[in-house]
């Protein structure tokens, strides 16, 4: 039996240590997945918490009908989509964290630090991250979800299809269009 499914069944039986193990294993990937999807570092942390709370609360009714990660990423995707819709409704559809937007301020502070080289490297890295995140946010939601699951989470087309509730050819098409759009963006 899949190790994750076994942990979920243990959790269902009331073993909270199993939940801790799932948190340890998937905490970081889920935070990063949500971050790439939503573009907000701070909110990604809260949304990841909500994802695991949903997992915990769903444990009593859990049945091992699908791969655990498929189910987990589906929950994270739905939470992220709801979040993006709320943000859109509030008139702030795709904004990066202020930490990025007001880059100068933070980075200047770091540069003024004793370790100038490290500060510059950090600043460059953060700028690069911002650029990549902006490129991802320029994609439509479904293309972004598909490419993030492929590149960062290294999921197969079949698994991405299961997470997103679409067909495998649809996933292939979404990833293709996302790569083409990003290719054009990088060229510019």
């Amino acid at each position, binding site marked *: 039996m899949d190790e994750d499914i076994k942990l979920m069944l243990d959790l269902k039986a009331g073993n909270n240590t199993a939940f*801790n193990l799932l*948190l*340890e294993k998937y*905490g*970081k990937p889920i*935070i*990063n997945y949500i*971050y*790439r999807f939503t573009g907000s*570092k701070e909110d*990604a*942390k809260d949304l*990841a*918490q909500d994802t*695991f*709370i949903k997992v*915990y*609360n769903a444990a009593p009714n859990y049945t091992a009908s699908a791969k655990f990660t498929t189910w987990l990423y589906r929950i994270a995707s739905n939470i992220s989509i709801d979040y993006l819709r709320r943000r859109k409704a509030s008139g702030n559809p795709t904004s990066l964290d202020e930490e990025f937007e007001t880059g100068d301020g933070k980075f200047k502070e770091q540069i003024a630090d004793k370790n100038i080289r490290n500060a510059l490297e950090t600043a460059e*890295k*953060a700028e*690069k*991250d911002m650029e*990549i*995140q902006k*490129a*991802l946010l320029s994609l439509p939601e479904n293309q972004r979800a598909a*490419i993030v699951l*492929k*590149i*960062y989470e290294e999921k*197969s*087309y079949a698994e991405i299809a299961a997470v997103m509730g679409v067909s495998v050819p649809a996933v*292939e098409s979404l*990833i*293709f269009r996302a*790569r083409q759009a*990003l*290719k054009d963006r*990088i060229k510019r």
Partner: protein
Amino acid sequence: MKHEEIKGKIMAFMDGEVKSDLKDEIAQHIASCPQCLEEFEALSGVDSYLKNAGEISPPAYFRENIVRKLNENKERRFEFNILKLIPASAVLAVFVLFASALMIVSPYIYAGDGQDASKQAADSVKSAVITCMTSSVFAPAAYAALCGKCSENMCKSCMAKDPNHICQCGGHKHGK
């Protein structure tokens, strides 16, 4: 496979989504076809570009925050369940009991009204009646015990209005 066919499979090849027997053929074609090589390198460039992104780590107390939120939710759910344990029928029964008590005792309240001379006695009756009514809901046993007291006060009130009054309940002796 023809060039166009292979070109359409470059991305699937990169993603490890082509059948193993086609892999060598596609790899050889890419190596020998400048156009397909360019497409392969462009798509690989996108992947490399994206993979340059840094990662974020879970915040301190990530697990603790989740556990805290779960406990808060549990408490909230417990409070809600307590409310659910009080069935609507119990609320309705209390209401019916209260309304019945009011109906039974209300004639005594009005009967207690009278002239100035009997005002004190009437107030006494009203007070006893209201006590009876409240007791009927919250302490039915005490209500039963107060029953005789109501009659006594009623008679006192009638006698205060008219000393020659003969109470129909036969309790006129109370007024004397």
